């Protein structure tokens, strides 16, 4: 029997879920470590196969055909209130392949990277990974807002679990909680927006909403507010200003987790969601403009912070925030295809960067780029792979980052958003600068120590090489089969020139020592000062927390202690005193009681006579 795309999509979902169930429910398997990892990796490989088959199977569907296969859920009078199912179109399938591929590679890489972990916690790690892959794939294939929200929250949960994987480290536990709460802040808006949209239109499903939106028949009061609230969910998940503060801290998790969740897949959920429901966002131009501005501003802000960061993983984290800003700016400029293209290419080369950084950290036993050096000579393959990814991120021809970034810039320019465009151009200069700062410090220059290091394990090395080849292949495919229809002709040259300028500045500063970094910092003193302190945003959040939450808690505590408790204490004291008074009636003399009875009977008699 040949399976159609929806059935294959269900298979793609079922495989990681089955693996998760097996690892979660069968305790001996989970605690055995390596076998658990093998189960998870095999399930993921099968899921990748199914995702590829699904893409292969998909016939070029006629436009205007519903790509969703739905099953009713929450039955109610007059049709189901909500439905679940799979939405199989080009974007979802491509995203599925990307998620499955990166998950698989990261799981293989983790096999070696976490070789020293005790078996029970390794099993736990792979259980989380399987659940994560299931949630992310479910999010990608969601045919409606409700299902998307469920998987959206599951992804957030997995992120929390994986960041806090080393939960006995206080910093990791704090980072996990921080990531969870800050993304929840955005999710509040998301869920409110979904519910308001449902109240207005009576459906959660994308297809009827998109049809109505494209036909101009979607008349909803307050659609601007609704879409803004839905966008808030993406702000939290995709680490947009001002909710980006969780992502750099999330680097406390194991490096493969950073590669998987905070580079290639989870943080792109927000971008994917906005691109997915773009037909609805198109109805509200103010929100789109806001998305573009916030995206561009996030890109620039994160890039400046990356320039002063010493921790290699945090540099990559800020560059992720920055690139997410690019994608959101493209979404806001009405070019979701460009956003999605950048998402895909960025997913590949950012995973490579993180996994390469994992090897670098493994090699030097430190995250501090200023204590690294000379790795390129010792490990040319690792250096080469990292360099390819760096060039891709900096946007150098003919690597995929160049083309997707150009598409984003063309989209923003096309929407006549000149200030965001300039911010993004400046960001591309900074991106090239800070990435090559890392490259020159870690891979070139003097080797700081001369110990003999063991070669990185084969699995880690192979994964990095595979990703580097994939990056090159994506770039070459884009370079060969490309049509230069969009954007003005000067655009690629400008973006390339800025990238090269950034590389040159990094080279002059950190390799040739022609420019003193300290003088560079003094020349840009205010920005340097602010960027080193993360623009006080963390302090602002902490301060808000302290003032609002702790202040409120104090007020509530006072009310509870003195008002609520006071009333209760007064009541109980009154009851005690009344009892103390009433007990005097009980004299213990039987005759007194008889007096009472006689008096009572007398009163009854009188009452009966009068009545």
């Amino acid at each position, binding site marked *: 029997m040949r399976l159609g795309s929806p059935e294959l999509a269900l298979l793609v979902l079922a495989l990681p879920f089955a693996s998760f169930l097996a690892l979660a429910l069968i305790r001996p398997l989970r605690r055995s470590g390596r076998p658990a990892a093998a189960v998870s990796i095999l399930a993921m490989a099968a899921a990748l196969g199914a995702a590829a088959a699904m893409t292969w199977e998909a016939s070029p569907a006629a436009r205007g055909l519903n790509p969703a296969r739905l099953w009713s859920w929450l039955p109610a009078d007059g049709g189901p209130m909500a439905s679940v199912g799979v939405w199989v179109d080009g974007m979802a399938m491509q995203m599925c392949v990307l998620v499955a591929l990166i998950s698989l590679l990261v799981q293989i890489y983790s096999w070696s990277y976490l070789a020293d972990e005790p078996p029970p916690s390794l099993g736990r790690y792979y259980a989380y990974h399987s659940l994560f892959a299931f949630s992310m794939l479910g999010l990608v294939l969601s045919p409606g807002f409700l299902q998307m929200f469920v998987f959206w929250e599951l992804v957030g949960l997995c992120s929390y679990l994986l960041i806090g994987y080393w939960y006995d480290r206080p910093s990791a536990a704090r980072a996990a909680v921080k990531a969870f709460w800050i993304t929840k802040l955005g999710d509040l808006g998301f869920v409110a927006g979904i519910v308001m949209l449902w109240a207005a239109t009576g459906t959660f499903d994308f297809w009827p909403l998109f049809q109505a939106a494209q036909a101009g028949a979607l008349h909803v009061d307050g659609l601007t507010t609704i879409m803004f609230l839905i966008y808030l969910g993406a702000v939290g998940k995709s680490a947009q200003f001002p909710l980006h503060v969780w992502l750099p801290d999330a680097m406390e998790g194991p490096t493969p987790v950073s590669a998987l969740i905070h580079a290639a897949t989870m943080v792109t959920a927000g971008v994917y969601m906005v691109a997915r429901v773009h037909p609805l966002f198109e109805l509200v131009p103010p929100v789109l403009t806001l998305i573009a501005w916030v995206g561009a501003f996030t890109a620039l802000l994160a890039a400046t912070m990356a320039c002063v960061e010493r921790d290699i993983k945090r540099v990559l984290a800020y560059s992720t925030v920055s690139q997410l800003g690019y994608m959101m700016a493209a979404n806001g400029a009405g070019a979701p295809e460009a956003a999605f293209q950048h998402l895909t290419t960025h997913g590949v080369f950012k995973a490579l960067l993180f996994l390469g950084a994992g090897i670098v950290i493994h090699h030097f036993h430190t995250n501090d780029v200023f204590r690294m050096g000379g790795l390129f000579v010792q490990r040319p393959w690792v250096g080469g792979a990292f360099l390819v990814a760096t060039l891709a991120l900096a946007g150098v021809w003919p690597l995929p980052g160049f083309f997707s970034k150009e598409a984003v810039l063309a989209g923003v320019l096309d929407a006549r958003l000149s200030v965001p465009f300039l911010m993004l151009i400046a960001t591309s200069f900074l991106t090239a600068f800070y990435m090559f700062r890392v490259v020159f410090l870690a891979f070139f220059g003097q080797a700081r120590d001369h110990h003999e290091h063991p070669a990185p394990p084969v699995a880690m090395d192979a994964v990095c090489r595979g990703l580097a080849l994939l990056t090159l292949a994506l770039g070459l495919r884009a370079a060969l089969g490309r049509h230069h229809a969009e954007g003005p002709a000067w655009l690629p040259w400008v973006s390339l020139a800025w990238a090269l300028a950034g590389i040159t500045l990094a080279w002059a500063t950190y390799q040739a020592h022609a420019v003193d970094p300290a003088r560079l910092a003094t020349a840009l003193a205010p920005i340097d000062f602010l960027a080193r302190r993360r623009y006080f945003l963390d302090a602002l959040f902490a301060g808000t927390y302290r003032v609002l939450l702790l202040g409120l808690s104090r007020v509530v505590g006072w009310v509870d202690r003195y008002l609520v408790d006071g009333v209760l204490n007064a009541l109980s004291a009154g009851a005690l005193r009344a009892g103390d008074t009433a*007990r*005097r*009636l*009980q*004299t*213990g*003399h*039987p*005759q007194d009681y*008889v*007096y009472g009875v*006689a008096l009572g009977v007398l009163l009854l008699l009188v009452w009966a006579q009068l009545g």
Partner: protein
Amino acid sequence: MPLTGYLVLAALVFVIGLFGVLTRRNAVGILLGIELMLNAVNINLVAFSRFRADVAGLIFTLFTIAITVAEIAVGLAIVIVIFRVRRTIEADHLDLLRG
């Protein structure tokens, strides 16, 4: 003698008994008072039975007398036990149930 005469006699005996119960300090005296009150009731029952030609009142009276005897037996037994323990049967001194 009309019914009223018997009823007045019963009421007098009842009130005398109640007075005894309320005023005697000796527990045996209180029991005697209770006995008077019960017998006042018996007088009422017998009087009504006689005047309404209904034998039920007489049967009730027989029951009451039997129960009264049992009650007095138990009451006196309690008094004797109290006397053994407390060396007194003055009602004023027996206030263990004071609140």
